[in-house]
């Protein structure tokens, strides 16, 4: 608008006019759009609008589900699940958002999580050597938590198998020799994709029925190369789906990019909920009083 007024008076575009247009653009960029110069009231309302936007989308995909920035603390649950036990030491688990709701009789929570460990590095500053801890992220993505429709004692974990596809039966033999918890299942495709560990092989077969195996394989196909993991413990299903994308993050500087990423987030959320529905997480096959006992 300011440029329009300028041309109205100047009549033609002179070098001075161009300079003034540039100055106006710069002013506009720094003082009108930069987050630092926006009043707190505007920022609060932007976050509120963003939250409402996400909730509109979540509610459209999964009626009854809501997104919140506050998420449950998962440290204890992750430790109990043994989800990351097989590949890295986990020292911190951070949650920064949660989509929660009910699916039939089950509570479902999709928690945006980052987990990792601390690594000590030594830096040379002048003549001094300074040690400091840096964060190494092992997992960044969604942790899907739901009531699993089977009641069992023990635990089962699924981790990606990077060795068997290369070494074949040698990898299986080696695993059987050194890992007392390794379990083999009858589905060859599943065996190639995942390492299954369980407190008891019968529990593993009970939890991973033929239909559940197919569901997990379908989810893996949808995710492509991403290394999905899973854990089943105390009637709880925990799926870890790595995702380095925006994950419902607020990007005030790039609202159009955020809108585009919303579409992807919606697709991922839809896929995850479809898998949970396939696994019949909302249907308990035991009575509530039995579970409480």
């Amino acid at each position: 608008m300011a440029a329009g007024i300028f041309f109205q008076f100047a009549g033609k575009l002179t070098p001075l006019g161009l300079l003034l247009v540039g100055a106006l653009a710069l002013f506009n960029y720094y003082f009108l759009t930069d987050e630092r110069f926006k009043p707190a009231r505007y920022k609060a309302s932007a976050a509120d609008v963003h939250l409402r936007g996400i909730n509109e989308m979540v509610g459209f995909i999964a009626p009854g589900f809501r997104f919140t920035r506050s998420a449950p603390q998962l440290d204890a649950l992750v430790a109990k699940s043994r989800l990351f036990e097989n590949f890295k030491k986990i020292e911190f688990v951070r949650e920064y958002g949660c989509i929660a709701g009910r699916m039939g009789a089950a509570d479902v929570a999709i928690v945006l999580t980052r987990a990792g460990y601390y690594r000590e590095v030594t830096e040379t500053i002048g003549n001094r050597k300074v040690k400091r801890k840096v964060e190494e992220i092992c997992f960044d993505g969604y942790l899907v938590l739901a009531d699993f429709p089977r009641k069992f004692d023990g635990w089962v974990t699924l981790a990606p198998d990077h060795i068997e596809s290369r070494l074949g039966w040698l990898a299986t033999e080696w695993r059987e020799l050194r890992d007392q918890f390794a379990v083999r299942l009858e589905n060859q495709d599943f065996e190639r994709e995942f390492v299954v560990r369980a407190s008891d092989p019968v529990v593993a077969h009970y939890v991973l029925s033929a239909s559940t195996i197919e569901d997990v394989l379908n989810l893996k196909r949808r995710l492509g190369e991403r290394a999905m993991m899973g854990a089943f413990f105390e009637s709880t299903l925990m799926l870890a789906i790595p995702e380095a994308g925006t994950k419902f993050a607020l990007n005030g500087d790039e609202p159009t990019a955020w809108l585009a990423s919303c579409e992807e987030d919606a697709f991922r959320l839809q896929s995850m909920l479809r898998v949970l529905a396939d696994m019949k997480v909302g249907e308990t096959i035991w009575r509530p009083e039995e579970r409480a006992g």
Partner: protein
Amino acid sequence: MSIWFMIAGAVAVLGFVVIYNSLVGRKNDVETCWGAIDAYFQKRSDLIPNLVSAVKTYMTHEKDLLEKIVQLRERASRSPHTPEESSNWDGQTSQLLKTIMVRAEAYPELKANQNFLHLQSSLNEVEEQLSAARRAYNSSVTSYNNGVEMIPYNIVAGIMGYKRKAVLTVSEAQKEVPNLDRLFGDRAG
């Protein structure tokens, strides 16, 4: 030269120990899995008297069926449970239980009985656990059989006298789907 012989001997002994331990581990896995199946058989057998007492007042026309399942349970509790022997009566018991559940559909009062509903869900649960235990057993037997037949495991297995084990197969009785027309045809007629 003698050093090479000693190294070769040490490698052979180490290899033998590793293979021996692996085979013993696999054999023990098979036995553990069979133990789990046996425990579930027992659990199912324990539910049968309760089921019979719950349904007998309603299912007066199914006296033969109930007597048959009680006899089968008694026979099963008397005989030793080996994988080879169990297949037959396990299949028959499963089939009879399935038939009772299907016939119960014709008795609305029985279907509304809380005790029966609880027993029904317990039996379903045990059947699922039993099915998982059978799959775990078959998986451990396959691993054991691979060990017994693959080179160089088969050499050690031969020395230890280990032989192939049979996997559990679904009996003809279990494969059979209850014939609803036959079950309810008589009553309708």
